[in-house]
């Protein structure tokens, strides 16, 4: 019982209370109207998650991580509401760029259906570019790293190419590829291909020689050597490139969807920012953040599963 109470009297819960109290402060005159109800509903939902996690999760570390993250979210929301509508810190001139939190969260409710479509389209766009990048880069990396043994030269070349921003290719992609979407996919593909190729090649070159010898003494065929020995042995390093590719893909999403896209999170943010509607643009930015966090979480699960044979 005492331990349960100890799990309730934690700073994130106090921050939730402060956030609610902050809503009661008088509003300054502000260009964008706040919708405190949306802030309260959203915060209450997050608080519910926090309470369930505090009481139900037995392991210390994940519980602490989740409650700390939620605590940071509450702290940020408090700062946000105080800095905008309660005290108007930036000054009137900048009010349009700094909407109060409730106004932004209202967009989630109002724009829920189109936002889902945007999320779906963006994920498909990234998935297309990313998967094409991965399925081409890994076999090529295995091939270059293993067969040609020109690892050093190829290593410098991939470093050269991966240091070029994929945005540079946009005009060429638009001219050469049949559709705007193909050009967007191409940007994501380039963001994925080079880091994955580089990490696969260095992974192959760093495979423990004694493992290769062990496989050779079993007389494995070429194909088996490449895909059942070299690939899994290099996988820990390949994942470094895969992760880098994923991060850069999301960073470039907004730019990729500048190329004639008619939907998608990047398009949504671009579109509203261009018209000065930062309330909606911020809602899009937050959605991108949540999607990225969720996909990174899934990526880590996959990585943990595929590398379960390695001492963590």
């Amino acid at each position: 019982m005492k331990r349960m109470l100890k799990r309730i009297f934690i700073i994130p819960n106090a921050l939730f209370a402060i956030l609610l109290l902050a809503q009661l402060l008088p509003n300054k005159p502000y260009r964008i109207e706040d919708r405190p109800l949306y802030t309260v509903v959203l915060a209450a939902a997050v608080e519910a998650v926090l309470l369930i996690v505090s009481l139900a999760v037995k392991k210390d570390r994940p519980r602490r991580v989740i409650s700390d993250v939620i605590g940071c979210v509450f702290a940020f929301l408090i700062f946000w509401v105080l800095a905008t509508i309660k005290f108007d810190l930036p000054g009137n001139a900048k009010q349009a760029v700094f909407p109060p939190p409730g106004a932004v969260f209202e967009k989630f409710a109002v724009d829920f259906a189109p936002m889902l479509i945007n999320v779906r389209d963006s994920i498909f766009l990234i998935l297309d570019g990313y998967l094409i990048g991965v399925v081409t880069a890994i076999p090529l990396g295995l091939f270059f790293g293993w067969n040609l043994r020109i690892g050093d030269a190829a290593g410098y070349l991939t470093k050269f190419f991966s240091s070029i921003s994929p945005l540079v290719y946009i005009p060429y992609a638009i001219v050469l590829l049949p559709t705007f979407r193909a050009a967007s996919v191409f940007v994501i593909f380039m963001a994925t291909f080079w880091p994955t190729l580089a990490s696969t090649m260095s992974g192959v070159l760093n495979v423990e020689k004694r493992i290769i010898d062990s496989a050779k003494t079993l007389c494995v065929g070429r194909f088996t050597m490449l895909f059942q020995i070299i690939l899994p042995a290099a996988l820990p390093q390949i994942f470094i490139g895969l992760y880098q590719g994923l991060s850069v893909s999301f960073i470039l999403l907004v730019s990729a969807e500048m190329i004639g896209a008619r939907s998608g999170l990047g398009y949504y943010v671009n579109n509203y920012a261009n018209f000065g509607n930062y309330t909606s643009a911020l809602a899009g930015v937050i959605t991108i953040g949540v999607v990225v966090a969720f996909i990174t979480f899934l990526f880590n699960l996959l990585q943990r599963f595929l590398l379960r044979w390695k001492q963590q």
Partner: protein
Amino acid sequence: MVGKIEIKNLSAEYADKNGKFTVLKDLSFNIQAGEFVSIIGSSGCGKSTLLGVLQGLIAPSAGGAYIDGEKITAPGHNRAVVFQHYSLFPWMTVQKNIMFGLKQVRDLSRAECSEIALGFIEKVGLKGFEHKYPFQLSGGMQQRAAIARAMALDSDILLMDEPFGAIDAKNRSKMQELLLSLWDNEKKAKTVVFVTHDIDEAIFLSDRIIMLTNSLGQIAAEFEVPFPRPRVHSTIRETPGYVSLRNKLMSLFYDENPGAAAGMEYTI
């Protein structure tokens, strides 16, 4: 009987960043089919290079090694290998490792592979660990699994490169007894070439010991080990002739390797 090894005028080089070194020069000897032979010598004497040639991983610079009259040019199905480290693939469980080996070498169905693998897992005392990954096992258990894989391949020849070199003394004795009991009980008489720098280990296991000189890898001496089998550690020391053989090997080992005495590894 198959598994006869002939080494004829074998020379081999070892190459690293500093250049090429001749580590074996004009070496010749034979190993009978079904014989258990240990190669001993201090580190750098070329014993691992010799085993590399037998594995087919190192090409000789002159002469060659022959199995039943056929020159070794590549790894082959007639040989199974146990290394000191990394014999097993870390991303496969114990059972998968053995099954993978079987699939490469023998033409068997999946069910047969699985059955043979489980049989050898039991024989080496790893029952209950078949679904563990190598990192979840101790060094000794990993080598048990590596031996199980090598045995399951049912090859004519077993090549072992200091397989117990990284295992503590107590477990090493157990592993030696396990290896001998597996070898004795196999239907097929396997030829074993066992590289070690441990004199007691060589005496305990072998029919014959070949000691290499510590430069240019030539034969310093050869010893028959006539002790009866099956051998166990608790009684072998009392076997007549054990002490004198051991002393002879020791003194020769240190004569040949004046530097090795400083290592204190074989103090009497």
